[in-house]
């Protein structure tokens, strides 16, 4: 009863949405940040509604199911902008349906969605191993469902400490949607990168929109919103306005904001190792043409690979990923 009252009070707040963005809809989803009724959150744990924008390719359906199951109850999913509805010049406005879903969830009128994946740990562990927790010996086996991190040599000086290995998936906030990277970290410095799958194709984004993405990734959401508002209102903003936002970025990213050579995915395995996490995410968030000079980074000890020079700086064509 108190829960009902709380739910009613909470239902008037903006609905918390975690976006899983598919091909072609990245800009449309970003523009939802300008709407007052919707709050785009960075992790599904903070969301009530999962917004699936576009048609997610089959190979990433399981990743989508993982993200869906990570939402806390009460949860719901909204599929938006799938191929069928796109011919009429745009995927339509999802906000009224999002708001309705959020309200119904909080008022208890809609049941929470069941999990999509089976209720099983990643590896069976109960009753196995030395003490029934799944582990073997010092650090072997799969205690409580996963192995422990093992040692390996560090890039910088060969010191052998634990390596944290994981895959950041197609729906990591601020990265290009669809980009799946297998990363190995020591501490928070990237040791190895492997591109499992490339980003989804999106329409080209204006420089101001890309600056807005970078500002959001470096912890300035209000500045990012201002840049986005400007990008939406004026397709050709004045150079000094763009420069003003670039100046703000410089504080977060020491390398100068220059070099607009497009960066291909093949360069990532050579570029990212040696970078600490914040810079790596900023590099990825600013793809395809990072807004700062790549040469300003210290060369990676593995294999400093030169970025292929482009004959001209025209923006990537329709259908290539921005």
């Amino acid at each position, binding site marked *: 009863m108190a829960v009902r009252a709380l739910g009613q009070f909470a239902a008037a707040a903006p609905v918390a949405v975690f976006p*899983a963005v598919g091909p072609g809809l990245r800009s449309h989803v970003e523009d939802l940040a300008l709407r007052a009724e919707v709050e785009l959150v960075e*992790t*599904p*744990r903070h969301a009530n509604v999962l917004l699936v924008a576009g048609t997610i390719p089959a190979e*990433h359906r399981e*990743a*989508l*199911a*993982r*993200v869906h*199951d*990570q939402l*806390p*109850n009460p949860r719901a999913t909204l599929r938006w902008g799938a191929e069928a509805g796109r011919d009429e010049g745009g995927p339509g406005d999802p906000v009224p349906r999002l708001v309705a879903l959020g309200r119904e969830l909080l008022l208890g009128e809609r049941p*929470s969605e069941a*999990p999509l*994946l*089976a*209720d*099983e*740990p*990643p590896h069976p562990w109960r009753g196995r191993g030395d003490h029934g927790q799944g582990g073997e010996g010092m650090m072997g086996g799969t*205690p*409580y*469902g*996963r*192995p*422990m*991190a*093992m040692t390996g040599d*560090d890039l*910088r000086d060969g*010191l052998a*400490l*634990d*390596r*944290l*290995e*994981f*895959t*950041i*998936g*197609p*729906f*990591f*906030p601020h*990265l290009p949607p669809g980009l*799946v990277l297998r990363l190995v970290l*020591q*501490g928070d*410095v990237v040791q190895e990168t492997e591109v499992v799958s490339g980003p989804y194709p999106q329409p080209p984004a204006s420089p101001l929109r890309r600056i807005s993405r970078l500002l959001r990734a470096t912890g300035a959401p209000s500045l990012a919103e201002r840049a986005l508002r400007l990008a939406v209102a004026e397709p050709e903003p004045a150079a000094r306005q763009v420069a003003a936002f670039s100046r703000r970025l410089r504080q977060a990213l020491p390398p100068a904001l220059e070099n607009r050579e497009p960066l291909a995915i093949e360069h990532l395995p050579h570029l990212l190792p*040696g970078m*600490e996490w914040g810079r790596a995410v900023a590099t990825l968030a600013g793809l395809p043409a990072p807004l700062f000079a790549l040469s300003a980074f*210290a060369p990676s000890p593995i294999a400093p690979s030169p970025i292929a020079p482009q004959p001209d700086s025209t923006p990537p064509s329709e259908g290539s990923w921005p």
Partner: protein
Amino acid sequence: MLQLLTLFLVFAGAATAVLLLPVVAGALDRRPRSAPQGAPFLGGGTPATHAWSRVHVRYYTMALVFIAFEMEMMFMYPWAVVFVAEGAKAMAEMGMFLVVLSLGILYGWREGVFRWQ
């Protein structure tokens, strides 16, 4: 004495209140949880291992300099109380202490201790 008790009570009271918030809400919550719900969020990606690992404390050299300064801090607390009474002599003494430790910072800076990598 009463002040110490008040301080402790305020700490314990606030901590208990904030502790009870998730505990009580969790106890009243009958909604089911599934194993995939507890998986670490990685944008849909999967982890190969648990997150608990011996994290590379690159900054141990910086931490040592920090400890040296912390010890100086311990001396500065009583020094601050008698400073005005002691006059310029106290300032000179603490100045010497700070200069010696600053040499440590300079050395560390030269050796590249304060870079992230």
